[in-house]
Each structure stands twice: as C-alpha cells, then as structure tokens.
C-alpha cells in the first residue's frame, strides 16, 4: 500500500513536471496571443502568419496559463486543511492535525506563487502593482489567514490545544476560499476577469495549454503533499527510534 503510494507520488512528480513544461511551452511559444477588444488606432491591419490582425495583441494575457492553475491548486489544497481539521475535531487523531498542517503549508507555497504571478499580471494588464478590488482583496485575506494559521500554531504550547485551535481556525479560514473564487461572479464590476466561464473565447491550443497546466499543478500539489507527509511520518518514527536507542 505504502509502496503503491510512493510510486504514485513519484509518478505525480514526473507527470507534474512534464505537464507544466508542456503548458509553459504552449503558453509562451505556441498559443496565439489574445487580441485586445479595441481596434488599432493606426488604422487598417496587418497580415501576420496569414491572418489579418486588426487589434492590438495582448501578450500579458498569456500569464493566466500559469497564474490560474496555481491559484486553483491553492484553493484545492486549502480545502484539505478544512477537511482534515473536521476529521481531527471528530476523532482527535493527531495524524489528521499533521495532514491539515502540511496542507496549509503547501497552500502557502501556492498562495505565494499566485500572488507573485498575479502581481505580474496586474502590472502588465492594469499598469499598477496592486488594486483593492474584490478578487485581489479576498485572496489577500486568504493569504493573511494562512499566515495567521501558523502564527496561531506557534503561539500555543500544549499540543492538544494547539491542534484543536488550529483545526477550528483552518475550517473558518477556508470559508474565504470559495468566496474568493466566486467573488468575480458575485461582484462582476471588479477589475479581475472571470477566467473560467462558458464560451470564454479560448481556442483549442489556449484551452489545452490551460488544462494541461492545471493538471500539472494539481499533480505537483498532490506530490508535494505526499512527500511532506512521508517526511513527517519518517521524522516522527526517527524520534521514537532514537529515544528507544538511547533508553
């Protein structure tokens, strides 16, 4: 069973690496740039690759091939913080608290990546590094909640109390994730675009690149989570064995 999981983790690392590589190449070297809605002020158009281009070309749109998969992965992994938080409160089994902590740790990695890639988007698309609009603000709050989760853990000495408080906080903190995901639909006037929608206007290469990137990032998220769980389990066993060796 453990052997199968190790193989699956290794496969996830390899597949994640391959898929994100393919997505990167597709995004930056194959997929056609997105055309802006406004037509050229210079008038007319130009034949590029046999196609008449009459709109400015937005290179900055390409960043969503990386940014959106990373952001979705952060939401998915953060779900496991809440899930294992509930499991811990129901069973008081320490393993679930460890799983919730590791899920939050990996969430923080993907949140950091989302914030950096998003800022690059904001800079090139909107000409500014930050805008206090609904999606960015709710995601910023999510990042703060993830950081506070670790501050809370570090501030409580007692192991049992720490696990209970962290589980409860993790569950409450996760409530911000669906809100942040849905906010561009709830408040459509915000500056952040709704990327995932029916008839989004992506061609096959663009959609393919995005889906491959998403699958790759989810594989990476899964692999990092399993590797960290293995590491924690090995650490705990090592401590026990060392104690019995010394005793």
């Amino acid at each position, binding site marked *: 069973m453990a052997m199968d999981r190790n193989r699956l983790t290794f496969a996830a*690392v390899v597949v*994640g*690496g391959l898929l*994100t590589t393919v997505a*990167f190449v597709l995004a*930056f070297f194959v997929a056609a*740039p997105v055309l*802006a809605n406004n037509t*050229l*002020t*210079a*008038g*007319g*158009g*130009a034949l*590029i690759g046999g196609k008449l*281009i009459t709109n*400015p*070309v*937005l*290179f*900055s749109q*390409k*960043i969503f091939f*990386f940014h959106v998969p990373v952001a979705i992965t952060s939401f998915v992994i953060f779900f496991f913080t809440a899930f294992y938080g509930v499991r811990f409160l129901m069973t008081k089994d320490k393993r679930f608290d460890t799983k919730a902590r590791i899920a939050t740790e990996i969430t923080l*990695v993907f949140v950091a*990546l989302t914030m*950096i*890639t998003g800022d*690059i988007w904001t800079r*090139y698309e909107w000409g500014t590094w930050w805008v206090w609009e609904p999606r960015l603000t709710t995601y910023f709050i999510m990042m703060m909640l993830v950081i506070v989760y670790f501050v809370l853990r570090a501030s409580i000495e007692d192991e049992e109390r720490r696990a209970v408080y962290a589980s409860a906080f993790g569950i409450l903190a996760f409530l911000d994730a669906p809100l942040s995901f849905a906010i561009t639909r709830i408040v459509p006037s915000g500056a952040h675009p709704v990327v995932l929608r029916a008839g989004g206007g992506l061609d096959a290469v663009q959609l393919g690149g995005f889906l491959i990137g998403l699958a790759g990032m989810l594989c*990476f998220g899964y*692999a*990092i989570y399993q*590797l*960290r769980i*293995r*590491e924690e389990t*090995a*650490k705990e*066993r*090592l401590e026990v*064995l*060392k104690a*019995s*060796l010394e005793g």
Partner: protein
Amino acid sequence: MDPVLKEIYSLVLPAAPYVLAAYGILWIGLFGYVTVVLRRLGKIEAELRIVEEALARRA
C-alpha cells in the same frame, strides 16, 4: 517600422522577455522546492534506516 505593426508589437515586445523570464524563474522555483523536499526526505529516510539497523543489531 510600419505604424500598424509598430502598434501591434508595442504591446507585445517590450513586456515579453521580462514576463517570460519572471514566469520561468517562478516555474523553476517550484521545481526547486520539489527537489528540496525530495532531498530532505531522502536524508531522513537514510538516517531512519541506520537507526533501524542499529536497533536490530542491539536486539
């Protein structure tokens, strides 16, 4: 340069190398993180094997 092409590429060329480099660095950073976790795990599991062998010898 043709004014039409200039306008088309003005939105593409100045930003392209920087955006590509920034995303490349972040992407490599993620690979680096996975590698660091893998190496750390390898070290702990090797140490675990040594301690297990020591305990087995003692038994």
